[in-house]
């Protein structure tokens, strides 16, 4: 079965090609069928591969070589797929969640003019993401990495008529590009060090070849790429703006799959990160800081999609915290559960938007509980999973990360647990403001309606996954850790011995209590005493404004980077611009030279000679033509004179003798 892994890639590619070329002619229904079938078939193949790995004898997965991609002398890059437990699990998440979101999009995008374009791009994205995940070497990984960035750009700016969407697309592309720059440098450094880019060879040689300092440089460069793609401090600013894209895109790319590429990459290259303790610390600290930082911003945002966007950044921070403390399996576990519940939350938010004619402002919603029953229940399940309500998926995965963080450092755990409190608070703030209480805008409320079944069914499936997804990672029975063990073998065993004792259960109880406290707090503030948030925001106005304006980070970046660059660009444009420089150096002198040649040399000298010759003959012929009198006598006389002269000459010179 593993040999058929390339089919996972093939189907989305086919779907993209079909919809890309004839999508506009075959009608919306066929477009959506092709796109969904492509991802669905891909998912089925992934399931097959998954089970053959789970039940089969091959422990370490396999490299499936497709073709030789680049061959220059000894240097060779294979287009090869690494089919192991990690990449298979990622493929399952990408194609599974991707399929549900494709189905949802049929309903969500039904009215859109560029329907075929949308599904083409979604298929292209699935293909690119799978390339990234299944790649067997750093170059193919990088190709997939850039392709998903491209898809992200085009899908954020899908409604490019709106300047905000076009700008958000550009911002996302440029900010992630900063990270990609580091990533590319890291890949080059790996090649310079090892002379190969294949995972297997690099990881095998790394312990012997890499010094600690070199490993630190390489891994920090790689992490720079991860921070850009996965929206970590300081490169997270693009993700909230990316919500300008269609909601299924936010769910698929900016919550469930693409943004987790950084986590996946760190987990995939953990062999290198293990060699650089400093980098591990950096990853963990940045993860924890981002988790906390983004969660505080999410507390006060009024746009439902932005709340979810900051929540995504925060949860990605948790994942980096997990891989930073060396527990890759729990990072991947959280990645998986997060894909379920965050996709669910985004799609739920999309469903609310759909029912409210595009309204996103939490302050205008309220009381939708009974109008949108399915959306409400599934959204509630997603929010509960996000908040970490005991026994739901988010609880297990987050708790495991916190437990491992505790083993590393109490401070990291403290940050994590405070963030967990904030998380459950803002998650349920969104739930209460949207679905509970009194409707705040009569008009909107009257027209609110439940979304069509094609949109609610994926919600139900995702809700089931969000609720039950935790079962794959129950503490001490963790199926996912066992499954991923061959990939992360050397490290999990170390942690497994630590994971024991009553302390773990105490910590678990603490996180459960924290989740409940957050929910109760949200209920008190937004349902029992609805005036309280306003009073608080007035009382702590500076803090509120700081959070509401997202710590002014966008403004800071604008001041530090964007405007200086604009000024520099303006300077370069007006002064150093090659065109203008070229103009000054060459064009103007040449223009002077040619005008000299033209006006002086050509018009005066050359034309003067030519005209002078002409007018000389004209003038002299004025005189000479008088000779032609027309009288025969005159001609005869001149003949006579001529003859006399010639004879005289001959006689005098003695020529006759």
């Amino acid at each position: 079965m593993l040999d058929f892994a390339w089919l996972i890639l093939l189907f989305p590619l086919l779907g993209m090609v079909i919809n890309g070329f004839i999508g506009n002619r075959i009608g919306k229904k066929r477009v959506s069928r092709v796109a969904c079938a492509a991802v669905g078939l891909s998912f089925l193949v992934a399931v097959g591969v998954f089970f053959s790995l789970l039940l089969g004898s091959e422990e370490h997965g396999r490299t499936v070589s497709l073709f030789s991609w680049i061959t220059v002398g000894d240097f060779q890059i294979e287009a090869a797929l690494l089919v192991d437990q990690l990449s298979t699990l990622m493929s399952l998440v990408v194609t599974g969640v991707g399929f549900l979101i494709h189905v949802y999009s049929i309903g969500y995008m039904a009215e859109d003019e560029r329907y075929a374009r949308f599904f083409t791009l979604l298929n292209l994205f699935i293909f690119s993401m799978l390339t990234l995940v299944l790649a067997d070497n750093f170059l193919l990984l990088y190709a997939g990495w850039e392709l998903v960035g491209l898809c992200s750009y085009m899908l954020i700016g899908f409604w490019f008529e709106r300047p905000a969407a076009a700008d958000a697309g550009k911002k996302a592309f440029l900010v992630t590009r900063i990270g990609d720059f580091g990533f590319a440098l890291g890949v080059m450094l790996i090649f310079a060090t090892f002379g190969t880019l294949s995972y297997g060879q690099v990881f095998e040689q790394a312990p012997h070849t890499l010094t600690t300092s070199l490993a630190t440089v390489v891994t920090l460069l790689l992490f720079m790429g991860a921070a850009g793609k996965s929206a970590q401090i300081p490169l997270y600013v693009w993700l909230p703006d990316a919500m300008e894209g269609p909601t299924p895109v936010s769910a698929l790319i900016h919550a469930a799959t693409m943004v987790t590429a950084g986590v996946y990459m760190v987990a995939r290259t953990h062999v290198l990160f293990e060699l650089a303790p400093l980098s591990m610390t950096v990853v963990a600290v940045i993860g924890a800081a981002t988790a906390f930082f983004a969660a505080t911003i999410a507390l006060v945002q009024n746009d439902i999609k932005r709340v979810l966007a900051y929540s995504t950044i925060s949860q990605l921070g948790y994942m980096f915290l997990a891989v930073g403390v060396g527990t890759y399996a729990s990072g991947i576990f959280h990645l998986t559960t997060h894909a379920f519940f965050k996709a669910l939350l985004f799609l739920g938010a999309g469903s609310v938007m759909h029912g409210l004619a595009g309204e996103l402002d939490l302050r205008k919603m309220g009381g939708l509980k009974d109008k949108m029953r399915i959306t409400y229940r599934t959204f509630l399940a997603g929010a509960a999973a996000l908040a970490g309500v005991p026994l739901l998926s988010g609880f297990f995965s987050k708790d495991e990360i916190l437990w491992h963080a505790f083993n590393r450092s109490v401070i990291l755990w403290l940050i994590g647990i405070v963030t967990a409190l904030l998380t459950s608070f803002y998650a349920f703030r969104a739930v209460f403001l949207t679905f509970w209480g009194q409707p705040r805008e009569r008009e909107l409320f009257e027209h609110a309606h439940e979304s069509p079944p094609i949109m609610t069914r994926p919600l139900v499936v995702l809700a089931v996954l969000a609720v039950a997804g935790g079962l794959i990672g129950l503490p001490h029975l963790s199926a996912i850790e066992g499954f991923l063990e061959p990939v992360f073998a050397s490290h999990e065993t170390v942690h497994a011995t630590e994971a024991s004792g009553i302390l773990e259960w105490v910590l678990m109880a603490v996180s459960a209590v924290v989740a409940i406290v957050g929910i109760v707090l949200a209920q008190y503030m937004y349902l029992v005493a609805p005036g309280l948030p306003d009073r608080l925001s007035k009382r702590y106005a500076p803090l509120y404004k700081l959070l509401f304006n997202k710590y002014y980070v966008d403004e800071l970046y604008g001041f530090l980077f964007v405007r200086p660059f604009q000024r520099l660009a303006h300077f370069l444009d007006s002064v150093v611009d090659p065109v203008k420089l070229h103009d000054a150096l060459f064009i103007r002198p040449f223009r002077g030279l040619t005008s000299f040649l033209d006006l002086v040399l050509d018009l005066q000298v050359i034309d003067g000679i030519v005209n002078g010759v002409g007018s000389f003959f004209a003038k002299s012929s004025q005189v000479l033509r008088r000779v032609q009198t027309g009288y025969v006598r005159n001609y005869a006389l001149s003949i006579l004179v001529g003859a006399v002269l010639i004879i005289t000459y001959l006689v005098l010179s003695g020529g006759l003798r």
Partner: protein
Amino acid sequence: MIPSSYYLALSAIIFVIAVVGVLVRRNAIVILMCIEMMMGAAGLAFVTFSRYLNSLDGQVVVFLVMAVAAAEVAVGLGIIVSIFRHKETTDVDEINLLKW
């Protein structure tokens, strides 16, 4: 026997009279006649030298000159007749269109 110089002097006198005739007369036919006179004078000179040098070459040239003169008269008179038909005159001063 009359010396050759007499013949040559006569030839020169006739030639000069003919040249003056060409230059001063206006009637085209008279001019044509004067040209014939010049040829006749030249022919006389040729014959004189032929005799003087005891060579027949000069007499051959005279025959050639007579043939040319006959042809020339035929063409020249034809032109004059044609001009006369146009302009009702044979005065060469009237026939002066070919000029500046």
